[in-house]
């Protein structure tokens, strides 16, 4: 472990991983409770459109990913609240649509190269100091917003209509939640990849739900599972030369299976 941490790139990788695990698991708790699990996948694919535009047009892919993910999250929330469409159907349409747009952009621009590949599967070991600063700044803002409105978001997840009739600003907070989730996802895809961020956002909470404890403890267990999976996954990937993002996801799935078996009725 000490040998592994003697490398600068591993120190940065661990720091980035811990930050992303914290952000993903806390925001994931709210989206899972709102039955929005597929949103993480959809926004990750939308962010990929931003990356593709950035790579082809020569803009910063990260900021393009953030912009497109936010626009996509607002579109989802608008369609959900304004039309009688099933939420999961909206997410499925946007997911496949985003992927199609991303593929067309990169094929037209001839930019399907290693850069895009790293956003698909993540490249935690090539995280730069600038990446960490960006994640820390925007991650802190996102986290503070989630914590500030956690009791309202929890109420909305439990019963949106009752929350509304209790004076909670449901519409504003729903948009706030999807915006924060979009930012976290866009920040994360550089590290764990657009194909894998959904797992880090959803599986720790689903595993924590198996313990059947209250909201605060569920969030705490989800955070511990996400942090443990990232640390264990990166350690295993370092010593066995495995892709880090995929190894992290397998670790979190392993913990989910254990949680399922341990808590079987």
């Amino acid at each position, binding site marked *: 472990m000490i040998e592994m941490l003697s490398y600068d790139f591993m120190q940065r990788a661990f720091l980035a991983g811990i930050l992303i695990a914290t952000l993903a698991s806390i925001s994931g708790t709210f989206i899972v*409770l709102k039955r929005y699990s597929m949103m993480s996948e959809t926004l990750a694919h939308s962010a990929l459109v931003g990356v593709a535009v950035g790579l082809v047009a020569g803009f910063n892919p990260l900021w393009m990913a953030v912009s497109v993910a936010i626009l996509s999250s607002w579109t989802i929330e608008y369609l959900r609240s304004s039309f009688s469409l099933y939420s999961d159907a909206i997410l499925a349409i946007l997911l496949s649509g985003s992927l199609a747009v991303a593929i067309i952009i990169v094929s037209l621009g001839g930019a399907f190269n290693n850069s895009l590949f790293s956003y698909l599967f993540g490249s935690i070991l090539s995280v730069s100091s600038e990446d960490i600063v960006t994640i820390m700044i925007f991650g802190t803002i996102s986290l503070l917003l989630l914590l500030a409105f956690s009791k309202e978001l*929890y109420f909305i997840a439990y019963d949106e209509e009752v929350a509304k*009739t209790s004076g909670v600003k449901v519409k504003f907070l729903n948009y706030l939640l999807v915006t924060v989730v979009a930012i976290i996802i866009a920040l994360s895809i550089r590290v764990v990849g657009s194909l894998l961020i959904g797992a880090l956002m959803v599986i720790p909470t689903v595993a924590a739900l198996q313990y059947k404890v209250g909201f605060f403890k569920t969030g705490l267990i989800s955070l511990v599972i996400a942090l443990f999976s990232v640390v264990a996954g990166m350690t295993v990937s370092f010593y066995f030369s495995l892709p880090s993002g995929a190894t992290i996801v397998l670790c979190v799935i392993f913990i989910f299976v254990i949680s399922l078996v341990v808590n079987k009725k």
Partner: protein
Amino acid sequence: MPIFDVKNLNFAPSSQKILTNISLEIFNGEYIAIIGPNGGGKTTLIRMLLGLETPTNGEIKIYGKKLKDFKEWRKIGYVPQRASLVDENFPATVQDIVNMGRVSKRSIFSRASREDKIEVEDAMIKMDVLNLKDQMIGTLSGGQRQRVMIARALASKPEILILDEPNTGVDMVSQKRFYALLSKLNKEENITILFITHDVGVIVDDIGRVFTINQRATICNNPKEVLGCGDMTALYGTQAHLLHNHKHEH
């Protein structure tokens, strides 16, 4: 000033008439039952009173203010239909649920104040669920969940409690206990009660007025009169009989 003042309310989405020309007033301290056949518009009326549905035309005022200008939602406690049929996997203890009743009173980042804790505990005591406060909501019986949902509504210290078929999924013993609690809240706490029910015969001695809703509203100030079989037959469109809960003096 009435709590609710409804004038000429119509609801006809896609030209399908659900409610026609509804006018009614609800005053402080009243105990009102809404009855009517399924699909008659009872739930729609309640949802419009709460701003969850927009009327086609007509006017609703709450405490003298138009619905869009009304901000003091803490004065209204709402328990929706099938509230006791909760998602058993939702991570919430009884206390987590009742705490939700205080959310709109707290500022961002704030922890529960001493007043919040007192009101939450008081609501749990009133609904006799304090001993269940650390239990997961999904492990409770239908009757227990129903009382938790009302405790959540009471935690905000409402002046009116609106309940939409609160007895769905609740056994008969719990229903009787529930009606006794409602009556107590109305008489001792002066909380206005408005609720949709199919069991009006059971509580005919307690309620003050009955609104019968079947697209149109009929307001009856003497519940025992409207509950004659003739009226019930006209309302439900079939032979209906009142099951009255006789009180025996010993």
